């Protein structure tokens, strides 16, 4: 589904991402973790086509993606959420979600019914006519996910969707994400809430200083000395045992 081959991106003299290679198979939930500034967001921007790689190649559905044209990549079936939500501020919640569905369903009426179904699925149905300005951080994160899902993607990039959610909301969101592969959506997920990502993701890729330092099953990764040293800390290693 997705294949990164020795991908690198340089900003000035700094390599934000260097020599990153990994693949994602259809139906997987792959978690990406790493400390702040490790290059996770740059990695997402590269996969989504928003940033052009300096080296290497990114293949999505067996085609090299159209670097620098995120709208082309999106039309091929890739959707993403942004770490800082990017809603359409002058529109209602329903219109925000409906807009995502408009590419596949050409009239607002058809797109609306898709949007309503997705909002019920994410449990923001009761916010349909609210203005975006009135939403809490947690609701904005859910809206971000609903907007991405309404494009009916085959691959979904989630960028810290749990940040700002309350514990019950995190539980809800974990259920939603875990159910996505059954709906035909493959997930690549950046997250700092370890409890959530370690329980839901099937495979974890650890990034540190722009490079992959470990990948594998959550249980194995959490015991890896390099990962513990770079990111998780000693305390988490004990807890994982």
């Amino acid at each position, binding site marked *: 589904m997705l294949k990164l081959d020795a991908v690198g991106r340089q900003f000035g003299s700094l390599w934000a991402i260097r020599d990153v290679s990994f693949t994602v198979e259809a139906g997987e939930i792959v978690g990406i973790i790493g400390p702040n500034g490790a290059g996770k967001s740059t990695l997402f921007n590269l996969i*989504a086509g*928003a940033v052009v790689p300096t080296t290497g190649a990114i293949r999505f559905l067996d085609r090299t993606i159209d670097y620098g*044209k*995120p*709208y082309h990549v*999106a*039309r091929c079936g890739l*959707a*993403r959420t*942004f770490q800082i939500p*990017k*809603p*359409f*501020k*002058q*529109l*209602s*919640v329903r*219109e925000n979600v*409906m*807009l*995502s569905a*408009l*590419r596949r369903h*050409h*009239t*607002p009426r058809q*797109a609306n019914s898709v949007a309503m179904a997705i909002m019920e699925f994410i449990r923001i*149905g*009761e*916010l*349909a*006519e*609210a*203005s*975006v*300005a*009135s939403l809490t951080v947690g609701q904005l994160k859910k809206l971000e996910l609903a*907007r*991405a899902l*309404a*494009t009916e993607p085959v691959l979904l990039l989630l960028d810290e969707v749990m940040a700002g959610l309350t514990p019950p909301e995190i539980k809800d969101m974990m259920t939603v994400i875990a159910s996505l592969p059954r709906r035909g959506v493959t997930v690549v997920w950046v997250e700092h809430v370890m409890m959530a990502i370690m329980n839901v993701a099937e495979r974890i890729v650890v990034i540190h200083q722009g490079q992959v330092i470990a990948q594998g099953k959550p249980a194995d990764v959490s015991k890896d000395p390099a990962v513990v040293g770079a990111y998780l800390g000693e305390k988490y290693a004990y807890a994982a045992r």
Partner: protein
Amino acid sequence: MIAGRLSAVSGVQAISLSIAPRRGAVSLVEIAVLASCIIAAAVVSNRYAVDIMIRTFLWAGLALAWNIAGGYAGLISFGHAAFFGIGAYTSTILLLNFGVPPWFGMFAGALIAACAGALLTRVCARLRGPLFILSTLAAGEVVRIAALNWRSLTGGPEGLEIPPVPNVVDMVFKSQWPYVAIIVAYMLAMFALSAWIEQTRYGYYLFATRDNEDGASAIGINPSHTRTAAMALSAATTAIGGTLFAQYFLYLDPTHVISPDISFQFALICAVGGLGTASGPVFGALIIVPLSELLRGLLSQSTSGLHLVIYGIIVIVVILYFPSGVSGAIGRTVSRFFPAGGFAARVQTEKYDAQA
């Protein structure tokens, strides 16, 4: 922005949410206001009153055209006088030099203006906010200076005059009423176009590109194409208004027709009436145009310039107190009295009860 607050109390939960503003759909208020203007002018039937009405409706149509780029797509342009001038000059030059009736000439002007608008958007593709606005202002000035100096084509500063010989084919009439009919038709067509844009996929793409370009790209919208198309459509419809202006006043010169003042007036009418709505520019024109004419009539004899000072103060007060424009204020008032009527508010409290 926030059109109304609505709260529902149920059992353990109280939800309070603000309802997003409603666009589109012609309200009875708008139809009543427009109809009463036409009837009033017909009853008064004084040449001056009818003239003000024609100007008002022409400016309403032009402001609606500006609003497609400035309001819906967020492309605030201070260069629209160039498109207005292109429309006015193209049809007039075709009429005077080749005898092409303005009924066809206006579409030639629209086509040229659309190309100019698309070109401008492409050239300024990387500019946003104030830089984009300044570049449109500069583009408008380029067209004005070109028109001033290209004497063989435009007549230079002396301008062009359309012979005042009434003739349906040349769109020149003795009575004012055919102009009323043509200009009201133009305004209604612009209103219908705006209302249609608000309800189609393309309109939503415009809103998305305006509100968040990265977010729009991420759901498959090409922001550059969307912007270019909006500016081309806005330029073309502005040019048609330019032709109507030329046919009504029968005289054109670059200093008055391609002046930045014209562009500012488009923006001002939309800001006062309400940006990004179909009714906003109409309300804006209904307030601004008669007001400036009235003030000029009443005050210009006493102290020179006083009417402009008072006009400026009134505009500042309106913008300060109605940041979402007059149409936004009317929308709020309507929603206060009919909370369920204009807004599809849907508050599901049962679900919360079930979870609690």
